[in-house]
């Protein structure tokens, strides 16, 4: 009973945040609702006993990704921000596609007969570390390469394109 109450306490804000983003027109408010959704999902991780993952969710997502998105919003939204509302015809299509997908997924999920396995006990960060460095060693190394490539690629893509004086003097090039 208590578990259900806590589940609802975290599950309702995630859905509310999604609907609020769909209906909102203010981009900064959308970023705020994203943060609310991320914290609520982190709370669900805590409820499922994944304490380490919940902390990582809040640290990396809320502390990193959400702040990054807020910076992106502030760097790009001027007066000529694009209109955010879809037209009436697009709304009809959007609702049709979303409802079809929702109905299909919910019906297919409802037909599954779940076999309840043993409930995993709450775990410590050390066990996660053993799992990452043991079974998931290959993906771990790939993830480190991915992070390096993403960092270099982002720094390359977002650099300012200022014309610089080449050493010969007259000719101007852009790097």
């Amino acid at each position, binding site marked *: 009973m208590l*578990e*259900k109450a806590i*589940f609802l306490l975290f599950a309702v804000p*995630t*859905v509310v945040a*999604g609907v609020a*983003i*769909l209906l909102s027109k203010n*981009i900064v408010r*959308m*970023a705020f609702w*994203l943060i609310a959704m*991320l914290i609520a*999902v982190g709370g*669900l991780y805590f409820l*499922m006993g*994944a304490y380490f*993952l919940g902390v*990582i969710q809040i640290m*990396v997502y809320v502390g*990193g*990704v959400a702040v*990054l*998105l807020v910076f*992106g*919003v502030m760097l*790009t*939204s001027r007066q000529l*921000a*694009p209109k*955010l509302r879809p037209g009436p015809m697009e*709304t009809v299509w959007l609702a049709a596609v*979303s409802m079809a*997908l*929702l109905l299909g*997924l919910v019906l297919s*999920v409802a037909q599954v007969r*779940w*076999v*309840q*396995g*043993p*409930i*995993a006990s709450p*775990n410590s960060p050390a*066990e*996660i570390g053993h*799992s*990452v460095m043991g079974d*998931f060693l290959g993906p771990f190394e790939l*993830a480190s390469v*991915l*992070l390096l490539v*993403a*960092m270099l690629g982002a*720094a*390359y*893509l*977002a650099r300012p*394109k200022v014309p610089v004086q080449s050493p010969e003097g007259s000719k101007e090039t852009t790097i």
Partner: protein
Amino acid sequence: MMGPMPYVILSVLLLVLGLAIVISKRNAIVMLIGVEFILNAAALNLVAFSRHGAGDLSGQTAALFVIVIASAEAVVALAIFLNFYHRIATVDIDRGDQLRG
């Protein structure tokens, strides 16, 4: 004790909401917010099945990788959109067809 069912239903809702956000919004950064919804739905599923089905830690570790990939994706996509903004002075996705090489 709840089974994995409520988490899976919530994950379906998050997926549909994220997809609707990606489809309906024209602002590229708001589309990124929708992608975050979709990735969180996937990670929630992984953790729920890790707890109720497999009974080991593999799902949680996979969710950790989902978080890593989501952050890398957000960084690169934001860099691309900033570049786009510097060229066209908007983040309207519909103007993307003006890009030529």
